[in-house]
């Protein structure tokens, strides 16, 4: 049976070899729309024997989708490999006019691309972001963008940036995707906003401090800082000094729990949102009286009031954009028996939907001082 093993070894030679030095490893790609054509740029990382790796940006103009691969291959001596692709940037115009689903579809189809690729929208063209030379001490822009998004996902108010989450929300009836929104500051890509979508089309942005609420409403989290400015009147009994109008509080949310319930469907869908936040105080702009049970209650009430106001404002903003990143529609669809909701029906209902917000904040700790 020795010949059998030999035969198998020979057969395994049929697979195309991949030599590391000849590979151009793509870590990020960007797509833009220019007139009728599409522009694509990608960061290619190549390894050299002896020297350390280097990155290079290659560009091409072409029709959409996979056609780029050929056009890009023509501009490099390396074999392009997309197995390490980390970030895909879509120019704002492209996302706004065309929608990006067609392009994410080709990412999904390719088995070599993971589901955890980050998608983003960028304010100037994607090309500009990709070509940016400022990426701190990280060798290539692709890895920089990847770490930037990852860091923000973990600690800040950014939510849902992976290919899987985007496609999931896109397909879900009554739920719209959100993505990080890259903007350039001093030629360096940073994240200040979150891009909202209707279907796969970009419709607008919200600031990171607003997207904090989308995050805690859409699902449950347990890290992240939140800066809240409450009015002085609400916390007056606690304060020692009597000047100024606002009091700034930074809380660290330890755990959030949310519950969204459909109370009634007629005449308009009526939801009740309950969010429970367990938090600790990190910073306060003013000195306060010693912490007692009653004082904490007052503080909690003030934060709840302010948060409720901000959530309601955000929900109105989302309704104005006609986008539902929190997924009220999904809850509606799955709470009502025998209903085949379509996106179109949902947007109509969503417009008049009534949403009650109930915030419950409990402060667990106040740091090392009172």
């Amino acid at each position, binding site marked *: *049976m020795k010949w*059998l093993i030999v*035969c*198998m070894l020979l*057969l395994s030679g*049929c*697979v*195309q070899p991949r030599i590391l030095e000849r590979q151009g490893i793509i870590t990020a790609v960007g797509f833009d729309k220019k007139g009728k054509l599409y522009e694509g740029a990608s960061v290619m990382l190549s390894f050299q024997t002896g020297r350390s790796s280097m990155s290079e940006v290659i560009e091409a103009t072409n029709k959409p989708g996979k056609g780029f691969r050929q056009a890009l291959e023509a501009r490099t001596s390396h074999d392009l490999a997309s*197995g*390490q692709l980390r970030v895909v940037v879509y120019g704002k115009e492209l996302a706004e006019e065309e929608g990006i689903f067609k392009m994410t579809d080709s990412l999904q189809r390719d*088995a070599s691309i*993971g*589901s*955890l690729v980050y998608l983003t929208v960028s304010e100037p063209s994607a090309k500009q972001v990709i070509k940016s030379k400022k990426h701190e001490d990280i060798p290539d822009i692709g890895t920089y963008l990847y770490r930037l998004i990852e860091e923000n996902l973990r600690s800040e108010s950014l939510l849902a940036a*992976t290919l*899987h*989450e985007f*496609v*999931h*929300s896109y*397909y*879900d*009836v009554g*739920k719209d995707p959100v993505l990080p929104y890259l903007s350039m500051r001093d030629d360096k890509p940073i994240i200040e906003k979150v891009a909202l979508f209707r279907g796969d089309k970009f419709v607008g942005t919200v600031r990171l401090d607003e997207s904090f609420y989308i995050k805690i409403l859409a699902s449950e989290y347990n890290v992240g800082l939140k800066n809240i400015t409450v009015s002085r009147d609400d916390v007056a009994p606690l304060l020692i000094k009597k000047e100024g109008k606002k009091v700034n509080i930074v809380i660290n949310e330890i755990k959030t729990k949310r519950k969204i319930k459909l109370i009634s469907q007629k005449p308009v869908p009526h939801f009740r949102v309950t969010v429970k936040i367990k938090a600790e105080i990190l910073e306060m702009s003013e000195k306060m009286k010693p912490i007692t049970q009653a004082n904490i209650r007052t503080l909690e009430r003030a934060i709840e009031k302010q948060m409720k106001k901000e959530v309601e404002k955000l929900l109105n903003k989302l309704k104005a954009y006609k986008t539902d990143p929190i997924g009220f529609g*999904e*809850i509606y669809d*799955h*709470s*009502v*028996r*025998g209903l085949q909701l379509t996106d179109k029906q949902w947007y109509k209902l969503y417009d008049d939907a009534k949403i009650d917000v109930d915030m419950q904040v409990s402060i667990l700790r106040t740091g090392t001082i009172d």
Partner: protein
Amino acid sequence: MMKTPRERILINAYLVFFLVHDMQIGLGIVGVQRVIFVEARQDAWIAVLLSGLWIHLAVFVIYKTLTLTEHDNIFSLHTFVYGRVLGWIANGAVVVYFLMAYTSILLGYVEMAITWMYPDFPLWGAALILIVLTVYALYGGGFRLVAGVSFLTFFMTIWIAIAAFQPLKYAEWIHLLPILEATPKQMANGVLKTAYTMLGFEVLYIIYPFVKEKERVHRYAQLGVLLTTFLVATVTVIAIAFFSPKQLDVTIWASLSMFKVVKCPFIERFEYVIIPLWLLVILPNLLMFMWAMTRGGKALFHIKQKYMLFVFAFLSFIVAILFQQRATINEFIDQVGWYGFWLSFVYPFILYVFVRIKKWAKGSAK
């Protein structure tokens, strides 16, 4: 009636658990979720459970049939019930089913490996490798090797079930609601579509004579089925929560796609471990079906199993290279599922009744 196998090549009853379970878990579980979901929507997992219940019943009936007479495999049972000519045709049909099942598993696996890992590898080459592997194993090993392989691969692959829980990070449980929305017709279709995945327990008809402690076969077979039902139901629930409904509708290998989000510190893409490993999962299936085929061939033509092995290996290679495209392979697999459904889910009940009648007729004639 075939002569009883010698003591030396008998297996212990507990191995039936692994044989039955491994035969059921094959390629289907990689992508079954979509297929059931399309029919029964969020109630797909209920369809799986119903399907499992039915299998428990079928296994019971198969066991009853086997103990009813002194004929202890399907081929001799057929000759007993239908006589020489009709029995020969019935046996031929069973062998054709085994051939189809073998080829469909082979093609399904090869196609998956090509799509995910080796797009430029020829289909015939991959098919050949697997067929040569089957022949190599069976030529030297025989039935005891099949049992040994299922025992080993079970422990080498069961840990994958743990990794399947990682996608739960992205789960949205609301997708499972409202429960029991599917109409009876949708549910029936769902049960039917589960069949292909859960097929395999019908090999009981063949392996029964090879088990040492006959009275414990039934218990272990039922346990094997129970584990399968549990696993399939679990991956179905996870997939429904992980994907959005329309997304699941278009995902071919849902289980594999779910592994795309499994992150290990030392390996970037987990599916690339799973796919080669899956060869271990389907190996008992390939071996078992090929062995069952040769067993049938022996009953049909009275030729030594050793020689039948080469004949059937050649036949399955020919069948395999007839298929090139995903679409045709898919239809073929569906067809096998349909055929297998009748043979394993419905036919045992009919056969049982026939055997009973025949036995009664014989008894009253005496």
